[in-house]
């Protein structure tokens, strides 16, 4: 810099230091990116947020306590509502836990139906993420593409179970065998309806197509990349220490998928991979979920090809009483690890049911991950963690 220019600079330079007091900013409870009602109390210094405190409990419905005064078939209807974006996947660990205590062997066809419908729930949940996450960053178009195919998947779920969001289709010992216990309703067997296999294959082809479209729409978009790459970095050791699970920890590079570890459903019979991210930023979390949709579609296609015929229900007593004991069964929910710790005293309902939900552990990372982050990035990071507040508060 030459001397003349420096002389001008010194004339315009402001010598007074501006002191800005820290401001407390409430984000939520009613913010669209919180997928429910989550309140964040953040200290704002300039453009950055510090000491972020999540306030949860606005959607507490007391399911753990409620389960103690309900029978097992009634609880199945309740736990659909924990994570309403993937209602079907919530039922599986609870039913498997009860079956484990009752020592029931589930018929293979029922297991395959469970697997197909769980993967459909996973696809629909991830498609919601594919729809809402770009929307939170300001891109409205992917929403329509993702929701269009999600509707197709939900139609298939409805054609089998009768419900789009709350299927209530699993029974202890298998899947729902018939629509009722009367003489004519007993004839209405709740097996897969005719044409389900061709429709499923067709829909899975469409889902793979929409993954391509979403990738073209979003993955190359410079604005989206600028908003997500390198934002909200989550190192694997921090993620593991906070108990983060599901796509969020896989995006950090940890190859942890309960579908590969546990054997609650016959996942080992299919050829599929666990997608893993590199850096653990928002972009990786988006990419891992997109790849999981593709993997799930491939699992469904293989399961439809290999589904055996046979009964839908094992032999179970008419009034279900689970013998005394306790067990913990976990499963890979679309949001992460979901587990039920079931304690039974031999009655027709559980003595105690502890529900471990994925979103609760996933948002416990918020104070760490939002430390010193720019205010617009709060929304980007929160959206990328993909939590549902019903799953957090339950």
């Amino acid at each position, binding site marked *: 810099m030459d001397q003349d220019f420096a002389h001008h600079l010194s004339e315009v330079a402001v010598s007074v230091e501006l002191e800005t007091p820290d401001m407390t900013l409430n984000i939520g409870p009613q913010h669209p990116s919180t997928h429910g009602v989550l309140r964040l109390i953040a200290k704002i210094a300039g453009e950055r947020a510090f000491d972020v405190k999540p306030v949860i409990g606005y959607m507490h419905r007391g399911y753990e306590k409620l389960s103690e005064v309900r029978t097992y078939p*009634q609880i199945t209807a309740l736990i659909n509502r924990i994570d309403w974006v993937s209602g079907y996947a919530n039922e599986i660990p609870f039913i498997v836990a009860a079956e484990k205590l009752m020592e029931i062997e589930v018929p293979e066809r029922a297991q395959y139906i469970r697997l197909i419908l769980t993967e459909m729930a996973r696809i629909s949940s991830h498609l919601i993420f594919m729809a809402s996450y770009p929307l939170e960053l300001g891109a409205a*178009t992917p929403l329509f593409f993702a929701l269009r195919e999600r509707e197709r998947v939900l139609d298939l779920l409805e054609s089998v179970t009768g419900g789009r969001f709350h299927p209530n289709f699993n029974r202890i010992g298998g899947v729902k065998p018939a629509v009722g216990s009367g003489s004519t*309703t007993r004839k209405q067997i709740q097996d897969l309806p005719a*044409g389900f296999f061709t429709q499923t294959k067709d829909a899975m082809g469409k889902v793979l197509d929409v993954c391509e479209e979403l990738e073209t729409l979003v993955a*190359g978009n410079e604005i989206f990349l600028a908003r997500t790459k390198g934002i909200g970095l989550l190192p694997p050791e921090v993620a593991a220490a906070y108990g983060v699970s599901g796509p969020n920890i896989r995006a950090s590079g940890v190859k942890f998928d309960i579908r590969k570890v546990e054997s609650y459903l016959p996942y080992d019979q299919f050829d599929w991979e666990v997608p893993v991210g590199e850096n653990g930023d928002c972009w990786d979390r988006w*990419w891992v979920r997109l790849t999981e949709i593709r993997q799930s579609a491939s699992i469904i296609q293989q399961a439809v090809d290999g589904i055996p015929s046979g009964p839908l229900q094992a032999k179970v007593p008419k009034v279900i009483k689970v013998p005394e004991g306790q067990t913990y069964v976990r499963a890979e929910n679309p949001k992460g690890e979901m587990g039920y710790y079931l304690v039974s005293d031999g009655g027709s309902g559980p003595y105690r049911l502890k529900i471990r939900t994925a979103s609760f552990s996933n948002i416990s990372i918020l104070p760490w991950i939002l430390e010193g982050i720019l205010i617009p990035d709060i929304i980007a990071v929160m959206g990328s963690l993909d939590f549902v507040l019903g799953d957090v508060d339950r």
Partner: protein
Amino acid sequence: MAKGNDSRTLLGMGMVKGLAVTITTMFKTIFLPKKHLATVNYPKVKETPVPRARGVIALDQDACTVCMLCARQCPDWCIYIEGHKEEQPPSKPGGRIKVRATLDRFDIDYALCMYCGICVEVCPFDALFWTPEYEYSETQMGEMLHDMDRLQDWMKTVPEVPALEP
């Protein structure tokens, strides 16, 4: 390996590619036949729900024996049943007088109902059925309590049993 920002491409190409998808879809929506559309113009065009859809619960009054199983098993107790015993004349002279339970009241509060279907599942006499009917919204919460005549009307909409996959 995560794909993504390739520094070799021109800045802005990603957005152009994305716009191309949007524009292609727009032209598809305009020029393709209507059956390819993802949406329907609802009040004018109606979609038929699948036969198993849990739309509303229909009641067959003649089949009901007021056994109260459904009301007891309901997780949120939204079924209200009242009944009385009625003596019927014997079918042939000199026979026994039959006592039959008759319904006085069978109300389902659809504002409370969570459509789990437990009542339909436990009914041993084929009195309750699911139907895919969905157009029964009301402007007041209290009007969601539907009585047994309304439930009987919905029996007309109970669909045929669909075929099964082998």
